[in-house]
């Protein structure tokens, strides 16, 4: 025992030199009573290296065996010596090491501490953050050591904060003051919590004032994060509304078809994504991360095909009878919903984010922009640009505009108006499918998916003005941001009601929407 103590003392003194794990240390950690093991463990952690990390990881994974006072790490039926890492033969009488819950807790903490010295910057950063959240005076020497050896600026900053968080509880008043000052720079909700906790037990007036000023500083910067966060979620909702409404802008805005089954076309796009995901899982597991890239065209084509069939079989007989169209398409939506329920079941299905879309971009301490939302915003913009090009620059777009502006004249010019109707409707439906593909990445995919968006997307088109792409864009983004800001004040449901009431009042004033069509085509 004494020898071990000396050893670790020596290790502490010459901290820069990495001290490898000795067989004795390994035995002390693995064999014996829990109390003794924990002491040994805590000692060992003070002077970490890779061998120790491996041993601790093995302990956590129950991959350690003991035979005749010797310790073995056994992975995949191959035993290794924890001290040297060399392969050795496992004696027949090896026994499993049993860890009780207390020991397990200690091992987990030790592993977290070891991460501070891992060669992986990201792991070190995570570990430092974890230390910041739970300051513990016993870890001060470790933090000091990590700080001394750390090269990465970001990790260094977090480590310094974690150190300040520990010192916040220090006996020395001047140390507390500096710590509070240092923590004020951190600007995260976590440190605010720490400062508040300290404030409730602090007795010294000067330190109290310093703590309060630090909290105020953090609050100021947090407020910015919150504002930007609300703005971003608003934009994100707006981009989703935009995707859902863009298809409608064609079928309803340009063609004048009230398509109540639009939401179900969105749902079909989402289910197409789900099917592609399943196919990739079964046949191309290696390329699974890129299934979404394949799902985009599949979702478009599936929904566009369904749309084309609908147009040819039902909707074309109802042109010029909007109320009947409304009822018939409502019927279609019921059939499609029930069809999906029969095929895939009434439960929601799971659509995973690909790896490259999970995680987020840490912009401010309390503001993380999730990658999937960023991708969807970019995707919505891309679809918008594509659609604007298609309608504005291509021959098909020209025909669509011609047919909507004056059907008989377009027909006289030799445009096959019936076919253009089908193409345009299929295009609108396909864009709904794209919306479904995007929605599958942020929300639940179930048979009722479309129902949630149909009222909203009609509102967007109506608000933006019929026949207006620009109006649709402004209305979608505006409604999204407005909705999220109201949510901050009034809660989600009241925000939604307020927005609906606002739209109803707005339509009273401007029945043509924000951007009214001027000229003869205006009614």
């Amino acid at each position, binding site marked *: 025992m004494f020898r071990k103590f000396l050893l670790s003392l020596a290790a502490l003194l010459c901290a820069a030199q990495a001290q490898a794990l000795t067989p004795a240390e390994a035995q002390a950690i693995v064999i014996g009573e829990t109390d003794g093991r924990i002491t040994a463990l805590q000692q060992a952690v003070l002077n970490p290296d890779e061998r120790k990390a491996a041993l601790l990881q093995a302990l956590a994974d129950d991959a350690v065996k003991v035979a005749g006072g010797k310790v073995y790490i056994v992975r995949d039926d191959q035993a290794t010596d924890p001290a040297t890492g060399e392969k050795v033969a496992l004696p027949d009488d090896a026994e499993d090491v049993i860890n009780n819950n207390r020991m397990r807790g200690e091992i987990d903490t030790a592993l977290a501490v070891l991460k501070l010295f891992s060669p992986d910057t990201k792991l070190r950063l995570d570990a430092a953050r974890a230390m910041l959240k739970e300051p513990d005076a016993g870890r001060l020497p470790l933090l000091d050591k990590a700080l001394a050896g750390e090269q990465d600026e970001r990790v260094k900053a977090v480590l310094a904060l974690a150190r300040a968080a520990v010192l916040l509880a220090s006996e020395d008043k001047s140390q507390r003051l500096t710590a509070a000052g240092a923590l004020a720079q951190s600007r995260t909700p976590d440190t605010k919590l720490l400062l508040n906790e300290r404030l409730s037990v602090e007795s010294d007036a000067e330190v109290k004032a310093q703590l309060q000023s630090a909290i105020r500083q953090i609050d100021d910067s947090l407020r910015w994060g919150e504002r930007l966060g609300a703005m971003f979620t608003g934009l994100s909702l707006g981009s989703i509304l935009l995707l859902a409404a863009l298809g409608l802008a064609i079928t309803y805005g340009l063609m004048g078809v009230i398509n109540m089954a639009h939401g179900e076309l969105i749902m079909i796009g989402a289910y197409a994504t789900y099917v592609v995901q399943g196919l990739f899982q079964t046949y191309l597991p290696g390329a699974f991360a890129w299934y979404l890239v394949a799902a985009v065209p599949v979702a478009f084509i599936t929904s566009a095909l369904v749309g084309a069939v609908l147009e040819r079989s039902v909707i074309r*007989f109802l042109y010029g009878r909007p*109320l009947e169209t409304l*009822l*018939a398409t409502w019927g279609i939506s019921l059939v499609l919903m029930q069809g999906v329920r029969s095929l895939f079941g009434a439960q929601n299905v799971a659509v995973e984010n690909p790896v490259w879309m999970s995680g987020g971009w840490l912009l401010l301490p309390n503001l993380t922009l999730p990658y999937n939302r960023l991708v969807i915003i970019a995707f919505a913009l891309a679809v918008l640009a594509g659609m604007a090009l298609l309608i504005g620059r291509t021959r098909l777009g020209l025909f669509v505009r011609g047919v909507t502006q004056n059907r008989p004249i377009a027909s006289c010019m030799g445009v096959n108006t019936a076919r253009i109707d089908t193409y345009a409707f299929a295009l609108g439906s396909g864009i709904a499918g794209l919306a479904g593909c995007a929605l599958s990445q942020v929300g639940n995919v179930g048979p009722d998916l479309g129902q949630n968006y149909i*009222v909203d997307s*009609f509102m967007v088109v109506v608000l933006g003005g019929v026949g207006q792409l620009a109006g649709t864009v402004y209305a979608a983004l505006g409604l999204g941001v407005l909705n999220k800001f109201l949510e901050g004040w009034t809660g989600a449901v009241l925000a939604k009601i307020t927005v609906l009431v606002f739209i*109803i009042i707005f339509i009273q004033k401007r029945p043509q929407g924000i951007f009214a069509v001027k000229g003869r085509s205006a009614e």
Partner: protein
Amino acid sequence: MSQVQLPATAPLLTRKGWSAFLVALLLVCALAPVLNLLVPQGSVFHMSDYTVALLGRIMCYAICALAMDLIWGYTGILSLGHGLFFALGGYVMGMYLMRQIGRDGNYKSDLPDFMVFLDWKELPWHWALSDSFVATLLLIVLVPGLVAFVFGYFAFRSRIKGVYFSIITQAMTFAAMLLFFRNETGFGGNNGFTDFKRILGLPIATQNMRMVLFVLTGLTLLAFFLLARWLVRAKFGRVLQAIRDAESRVMFSGYNPLGYKLAIWTLSAVMCGIAGALYVPQVGIINPGEMSPANSIEIAIWAAVGGRGTLVGPIVGAFVVSGAKSWLTVAAPEFWLYFLGGLFIVVTLFLPNGIVGLAKKLKALNKKPAVEQST
């Protein structure tokens, strides 16, 4: 200036019509009570309680369909928010029934159970009149009427019509549904009102009370039918139909459509409200689900299936569709939505005048050869 020759006013009902009406009256007021209450159970002629409940419910739906027909079939305004008025009438009735529970609830409190659950100490202001039956009867008319009047005034004044109107009525009932789902609005949130015990101090779940409500619903339906018939025959009804067919021309002829539209819209809403108030004591529950846009659209399909622009049509439609629903949802639940969806499509594509229109057409086909032979 020569007098415009107006066609002779048609009688309220033809001789045949009156006899059919009397038969319906007898069925509701005499035959159904006798078959249900006096004919012993087990007899072939016994009318089961289940049938009474089902028919009572469907007659409420038929009132809604009739109301929908007045506004859609005769005035050309498709409302996708009539479920809201139905639910409002139902909620007013439900509030009264909740107060009638008294201290017999689970918590033995004067307040309705859900308020005790939310830890409320006194009734919110909008419950003030709910313990009086007379006030409740008034509110059943006033609440849906007022909501419809205000909404309609603003909508019709700015000449919102066609699909726009349909969509904002749908948004209206959707917004109301979200509002009623909230606990703090004081309407029982998700669960709404249920567990009713008494009406006018009499126990509500007895066979006799059910029969009374059934007869009352039947009489209301027949009375509304006569009222509607009278309305559409009168000059008022003719203006409505003119608005449906060519609103601009009506305006050029010196009529202001606003008053006509507003009047029929409000009347239609009140009819739905009354239907809702009759519905709630019969089914014993009211919750915000009644306001979902899907329910309102179903009202429209009753009218469409039966035949818009006829008054018998919507009633027939309500019976056929709701009957099919209550049978199919038990026999083959997964096919109900296919059936309903298919119905929407088939009716709009092939039966623009509904069942009644089809019947008329068949009759005309049968007659034609006879006419040819005679000439």
